[in-house]
C-alpha cells in the first residue's frame, strides 16, 4: 500500500480556497484561521492578530495552530480536539488558551470544521476563535464552587458513616452461654445516618440487656436522639431491673429533651440463674420480638406498649419467658416487616416467621437469612433501615451449672 503525498505548496493552496471572505475582515467579530489538514496556518484574520499580538508573517506558513497552545492545551488538542475533528468533521465549543506574542494567555472558545475535497480527502481546517476571558473567569469560579460543594458532601458522608458506626456496634459482644448475632443495613445508598440502633451490654455477671430501637426520621437530629436513647438505656438499666422501668425512663428523657422526635424500642433483659436463662421483654411502640423454640412454631412474645416520647404517662408491660437450649429471641425493626415488594405489598409477619422457622441453627444463620430474604423481596432496594438482633441459648447452656 502506498500513498501519494501532495507537495507543501499544493496542500497550502488547497487549504486557501475560502468561501468565507467576510471572516478575513479585520473588523470581523471573531478570530478566524484556516490551516492545512496538518494544522499549518495558511490564513489568519486581523481580529485574531489584534487579540494575540502575533504578526501575520510569523504565523502564515510557519506555525501550526497547535504551536500556539500551552503544553497542557497541546495534549488536549492532540488527544481530543484533533481526533474529534477527524472523525466527526467538526469540533465545537472547545475551551483552549492561546499563547499571545508577549507570553500572555488568551482564554478562547474554538469551533472548527474540517473541509474535504470532492474525493473525501481532508483539504483544510477552518477555525473560529472567540475571546472567552470573562466567561473563563466565571467558569473557574463555578468549578471552584463545585469542588467545594463536592468536598463538603464527601465530608458530610464520612461524618454520617462515622456517626453510624458509633451508634451501631459492628459486632455484638461475646456473651458466655448465649449465641448473639446482629445485622444492620441502612436504607438507600448509606449516605444518611439512619434511625435504627441496637445494643447488647452487660449489667452484671449473667445479667445482660439487648435493646433494639428505631428513632423517627433520619439525619443529624435523628442521630442525636439515637445517641441519647442508647446511652439513656445503658444508664437506666443499671438503676432499674425491670425493662418496663427502663423504657419509662427513656420515655421521660425523650419528652424532656429538646426534640419533636419519638422512638420505638424493644428491650430484653437476659438473666441466668441456676443454669437457666430467663428473658424479660418490654416493648414501646415496637413490633414484638419473635420466640423460636425447638419443635414449635415461631411466635411473637411480649405485650405491645405505647410509642416513646409522646404520651404524658405511658404504661409498659414486662413479659417473662424461660429460654431453654436452642431457644432464640429475634428482635427486629419495622424495616423488615414493612419492606415492600414490586407491587407495593408488605413483607409482613408471616414471611418473617417462616424464615425463622426454617433456620434453627446458629444465631448468625437466622439473622443473615432474614436480611437476605427481605432484601431479595425488595429487589435489593431497601427504603427503610433494617436491623435484626438474635439471642439464642447455646445447645448445652441450659443444662450446665452457671
Amino acid at each position, binding site marked *: *500500500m*502506498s*500513498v501519494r*503525498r501532495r507537495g507543501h505548496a499544493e496542500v497550502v493552496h488547497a487549504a486557501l480556497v475560502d468561501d468565507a471572505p467576510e471572516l478575513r475582515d479585520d473588523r470581523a467579530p471573531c478570530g478566524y484561521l484556516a490551516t492545512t*489538514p*496538518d*494544522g499549518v496556518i495558511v490564513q489568519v484574520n486581523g481580529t485574531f492578530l489584534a487579540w494575540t499580538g502575533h504578526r501575520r508573517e510569523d504565523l502564515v506558513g510557519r506555525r*501550526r495552530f*497547535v504551536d500556539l497552545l*500551552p*503544553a*497542557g*492545551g*497541546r*495534549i*488536549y*488538542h*492532540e*488527544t*481530543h480536539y*484533533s*481526533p*474529534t475533528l*477527524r*472523525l*466527526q*468533521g*467538526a*469540533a*465545537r*465549543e*472547545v*475551551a*483552549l488558551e492561546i499563547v499571545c506574542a508577549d507570553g500572555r494567555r488568551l482564554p478562547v472558545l474554538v469551533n472548527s*470544521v474540517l473541509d*474535504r475535497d470532492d*474525493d*473525501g480527502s481532508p483539504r483544510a481546517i477552518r477555525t473560529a476563535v472567540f475571546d472567552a476571558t470573562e466567561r*473563563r473567569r466565571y*467558569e473557574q469560579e*463555578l*468549578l471552584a464552587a463545585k469542588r467545594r460543594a463536592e468536598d463538603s458532601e464527601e465530608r458530610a458522608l464520612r461524618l454520617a458513616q462515622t456517626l453510624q458506626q458509633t451508634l451501631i456496634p459492628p459486632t455484638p459482644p461475646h456473651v458466655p452461654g448465649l449465641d448473639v448475632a446482629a445485622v444492620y443495613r441502612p436504607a438507600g445508598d448509606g449516605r444518611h445516618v439512619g434511625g435504627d440502633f441496637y445494643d447488647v451490654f452487660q449489667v452484671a455477671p449473667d445479667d445482660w440487656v439487648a435493646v433494639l430501637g428505631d428513632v423517627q426520621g433520619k439525619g443529624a437530629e435523628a442521630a442525636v436522639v439515637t445517641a441519647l436513647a442508647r446511652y439513656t438505656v445503658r444508664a437506666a438499666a443499671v438503676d432499674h431491673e425491670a425493662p418496663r422501668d427502663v423504657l419509662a425512663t427513656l420515655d421521660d428523657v425523650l419528652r424532656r429533651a429538646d426534640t419533636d422526635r419519638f422512638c420505638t424500642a424493644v428491650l430484653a433483659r437476659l438473666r441466668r440463674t441456676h443454669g437457666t436463662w430467663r428473658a424479660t421483654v418490654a416493648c414501646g411502640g415496637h413490633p414484638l420480638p419473635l420466640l423460636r423454640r425447638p419443635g414449635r412454631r415461631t411466635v411473637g412474645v411480649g405485650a405491645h406498649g405505647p410509642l416513646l416520647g409522646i404520651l404524658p404517662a405511658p404504661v409498659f408491660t414486662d413479659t417473662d419467658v424461660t429460654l431453654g437450649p436452642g431457644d432464640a429471641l429475634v428482635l427486629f425493626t419495622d424495616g423488615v416487616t414493612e419492606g415492600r415488594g414490586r407491587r407495593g405489598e408488605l413483607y409482613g409477619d408471616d414471611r418473617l416467621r417462616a424464615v425463622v422457622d426454617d433456620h434453627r441453627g446458629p444465631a448468625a444463620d437466622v439473622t443473615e437469612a432474614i436480611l437476605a430474604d427481605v432484601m431479595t423481596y425488595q429487589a435489593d432496594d431497601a427504603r427503610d433501615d433494617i436491623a435484626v438482633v438474635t439471642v439464642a441459648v447455646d445447645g448445652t447452656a441450659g443444662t450446665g451449672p452457671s
Partner: protein
Amino acid sequence: MSAVDRHAVHVSGVPGARPLLFAHGFGCDQHMWRYVAPHFEDRFTVVTFDHVGAGASDLSAYDPARHASLEGYAQDVLAIVRELDLRDVVLVGHSVSAMIGVLASIAEPDRFAGLVLVCPSPRYLDDDGYTGGFTRADICELLESLDSNYLGWSSAIAPAIMGNPDRPELGAELTASFCRTDPDIARRFARATFLSDDRAALPRVTVPTLVLQCTHDVIAPLAVGEYVRDAVPGARLVLLDATGHCPNLSAPEATTAAVAAFVDEGLG
C-alpha cells in the same frame, strides 16, 4: 460481567486467524482505529475494545485503585485476551496503550507474538538526562484543560454530528461524542498516563516490536520514539509520513501499510 462486556469488545475478521488487538490511547475510544482496523479483516481476527472509562465501556468497572497505574490497564487487556483465549496476539497500541501493551506482553509473553507501538512514550515528564517533553506544571495545565472542557458534562448535550457524505457509516454510530467521558475518570486516566514512568519495562520486552513514529508529534517527539527503539531489544522504528500524534486518523493508509508489513515480515 465479562471482560468482553466491560470493554465493549468488538471482534471481526477471520475466526481462528492470527489476532490483531487494537488498543486506543488517552482521550477517545476504539473508534480511533476505524480507518485502520477494517483493512485487516480479510486475513486476521481483528479485536478492538474500549478501556474502562472510555467509549461504551462499563463505567462502574472503573476502580480508582486498579486504574491508578498503567499496570491495571494492562491487567484489563490480559483479561480480554484470556477470555477470548487469544494466542499469538499482535497488539497494536496507540499512545498510552503502547506502554499498556508493553506491560501486558511482559506479564504474559506466551500470549503475544508482537507489539506495534504507535507514538509511544514511556515517560512524558522530563527527567535527569531524559527529555519526555513535559513538566509537572504542563500536566496540571492539561488537567485544567480537561476541567474547562467538561463543564457541560452533567447536562450531557451530545454535539451535533456533521454530515460526512463520503463516510456515511460515521453518522449512525457516533451518537454521543466519543471523546468525552466521565470527567473524574478522565482526570485520573490523565494522571495515570502522563505521570507514569515505565522506562524500566522496555528492556524486558521479549517479542518482536515495531515503533511507529510521526514527525511533529507534540506528545511523543522523535527523540522519545528513538529512546523506545533503543531500549526494547531488537525493536525497529518506522518514521511515518504523518504529522501529529494520531497517524491512525491523519495517515491511516501509511499506518495500515506499516502494520501490515510488520505482521507479514517482521515477526520472524
